[in-house]
């Protein structure tokens, strides 16, 4: 991993940081950066895994971005987590750190009126170190390639829909985290293999300490206490959602490419299932799909919670 642009000198003591690994996501980057700048992210740290579509050049020119590049194997680096972990250890100690993919958009209680720092300040005063935001798969109505995504566009103008209440929740005894699955991906791509359906639980926002480490993607962390983002005695802790803009017209090509590279989790089972599913041109939309309005809707539906933040 080599530095392309290291602007980490600009990181201040209280900066909120964002980390992400990507490969060939040029078209998504402008909106992604704008979204998180507006929320109040102060500095971005990217690892580019051998993009050849101009992603690297684009990121390199952004004033609040530090960029590293590597052509090493995504799979052998624990799906990018080794790269991320080394950056976290070096630059994130003591900072609120958001680790997301470029197709994940954080929504949290009051995010329309309160910047990310309001949330992190509140987490600080409440003595909370980690914040949960489950993946919410968003999809368009009709075939995925019917509405092409334009650069800079809000992807949720196209992928407006989501499944509101078909998620499986269970506890992972080993690391104490919850294991969430379900949604359109389980419904459409894994109906015969529910246990293979992708995990949707994520803990993307953490007041980082160099002793911390993500174990598997951002699904769970060490030490185990960080995974206790849920209340066990009946109450609700505050949580958000990561709106997932995966299912756009760009998806079919991505699935094909990732299958060929074979660099993904569990021998790319997920992408294989997608590719097989995609051959039949699926429409993830169903008559019970919910159209996205705002975070309050997600709160009422019980997908996220304000907890005691008011």
């Amino acid at each position: 991993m080599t530095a392309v642009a290291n602007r980490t000198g600009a990181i201040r003591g209280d900066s909120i940081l964002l980390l992400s690994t990507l490969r060939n996501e040029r078209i998504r980057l402008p909106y992604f950066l704008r979204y998180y700048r507006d929320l109040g992210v102060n500095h971005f740290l990217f690892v580019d895994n051998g993009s050849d579509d101009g992603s690297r050049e684009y990121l390199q020119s952004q004033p609040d971005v530090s960029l590293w590049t590597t052509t090493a194997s995504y799979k052998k680096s624990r799906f990018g987590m080794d790269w991320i972990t080394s950056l976290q250890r070096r630059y994130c100690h003591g900072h609120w750190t958001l680790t997301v993919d470029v197709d994940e958009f954080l929504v949290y209680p009051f995010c329309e009126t309160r910047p990310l720092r309001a949330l992190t300040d509140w987490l600080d005063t409440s003595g909370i170190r980690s914040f949960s935001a489950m993946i919410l798969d968003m999809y368009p109505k009709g075939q995925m390639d019917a509405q092409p995504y334009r650069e800079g566009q809000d992807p949720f103008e196209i992928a407006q829909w989501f499944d509101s209440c078909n998620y499986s929740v269970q506890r992972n005894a080993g690391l104490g985290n919850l294991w969430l699955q379900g949604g359109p991906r389980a419904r459409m791509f894994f109906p015969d293999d529910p246990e293979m359906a992708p995990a949707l639980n994520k803990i993307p926002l953490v007041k980082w300490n160099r002793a911390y480490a993500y174990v598997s993607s951002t699904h769970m962390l060490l030490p185990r206490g960080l995974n206790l983002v849920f209340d066990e005695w009946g109450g609700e802790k505050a949580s958000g959602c990561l709106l997932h803009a995966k299912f756009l017209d760009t998806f079919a090509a991505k699935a094909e490419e990732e299958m060929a590279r074979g660099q993904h989790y569990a021998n790319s089972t997920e992408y294989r299932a997608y590719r097989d599913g995609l051959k039949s041109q699926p429409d993830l939309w169903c008559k019970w799909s919910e159209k996205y309005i705002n975070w309050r809707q997600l709160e009422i539906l019980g997908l996220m919670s304000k907890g005691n933040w008011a």
Partner: protein
Amino acid sequence: MTQNGTLGFVMLCHTALHRAAETARHWAERGCPVVIHVDKRVQKWSYDTLHADLADLPNVRFSDRFACEWGTWGIVAATQAATEVMLADFPSVRHVYLSSGSCMPLRPVKELIAYLDERPRTDFIESVTTEEVGWTIGGLNMERFTLRFPFSWRTQRWLFDRYVKLQRAVNFQRTIPNGIVPHLGSQWWCLTRQTLSAILQGPERQTYDTYFRRVWIPDESYFQTLVRQVSSNVESRSLTLSKFDFQGKPHIFYDDHLQLLRRSDCFVARKIWPQANKLYSTFLSDDATAQAGGEPNPGKIDRLFSKAVERRVKGRAGLYMQSRFPNEHWENGRTSAPYSVFQGFSEVFEGFESWLGKVTGTRVHGHLFAPDRVEFAGGESVFNGAIPDNAKLRDYNPKSFLSNLIWATRGERQCFQFGPGDNQALNWFMSLDANAQISVISGAWALPLFKSNLNFSDIRREAARLQKIELEHLAVLRHSATKARVRIWTLAEFVENPMEPLQTIVDEISPRSLRRLTEAPRLTDLTGFGQFLQNLRNQGMQPVLMGDFPAGDDLRQAETRRGRPYLVK
């Protein structure tokens, strides 16, 4: 610069000093002297900046600095020092208002002055006896005053707890000087010069200070207790709107609380998020014209925050999600709404499901836990919440399946059929769920076998299997821990008099309709069923769940029922 008036503010500051400066300037420029205490732990340059920011204001003073660790004497010492400066330097001041750097005035200060002018002798301080407070941290009320607390609650919790335990064990008690009665209350008060000078210049001050120095969280008890010794006119409430969450941390106000704060009619609120630009620009300007201007009325804000605490502590019943996953028996309700489970009814009656839907106006499903697929009402392939009818997905996590279904259909009661041929994984879950209404006609599963065209040896094997499953299920339902509303009839018992049980169940589902059922669904034909059971017996299988069906001689109703609806007056 207006002349100094009768109201002065003491401000205790430790963070966001630029905001404290704005608030201090706001008050000072409107004729209210301000004495600022800055926590000793604040760095020098921040302090110097604040000092310089306010240098142009003649009625702003800075008092001696103390380290104000939460729960310790430093906060009281700081308050005393700053108040002494106020009383000495500003003789016009009659009421001293204790505030913090993160407080903000919600109403024009002249309204507050007018309010106090009408009550010139009143001390506004929340002051209640230890028996009456319900909000203390760590479960310590009276013991705050009778134990010693050398360890920090925040940073040395383990030692803190051990030391408290130890003192309890050996029955240690500090004596309270002069037999004063300890009172507790919000730290934020507004007291008169007379009262404050009596406390601060009283002959016993040294005694009390020595004592309170070792009381836990003295800032919530020092003035609150001593005011009772010197004032005869205590109004036991705080003029500062300040709410605490379940951890004892103050709730924070943001820009989106603007309207709520406006309508509260409170004079001062804390704590304001330092970057709440809209709040600061609104309330620190004089445009905030006088509102209705009556008594403070924080009711709406109270409700907002108490709801937040309730959500954090109790949560929404029946919801399982990323940040609420209660341990078993801690759910406050395993599911979110009442639902009904029918076992054997669709076997005994023809067209039971559509009849039930019509009579009760509820959603009636087939066998939701059928082995091959989820039989949603109307044969839907996907249901509310985008729940698919796939049996594998359902069986992967049946508990999530059921709680999701009930959650996704809140407001519409769900009814479904169940039987020994279905997935039995949730038998305990439903039996322990107070929302479940479970009605069982035991042995009714034999009717489809009776009518089937299977070889008798296969029928016998299947009957034995289903009977075993149902027996186990009934044992669960009859367990003493059961919380569901369970009713069980044998098949024979039920067909003898089907109307009464149906009426009871329907009344329970829709209690408001309370009308007699005029039409029952048609009973299925039972001719020959007694003989069928006898055949099972003859083949060595003992059917025990159906009740008494005489072999050969069929039950009387069975014949008359055919072709005619069951009518009741």
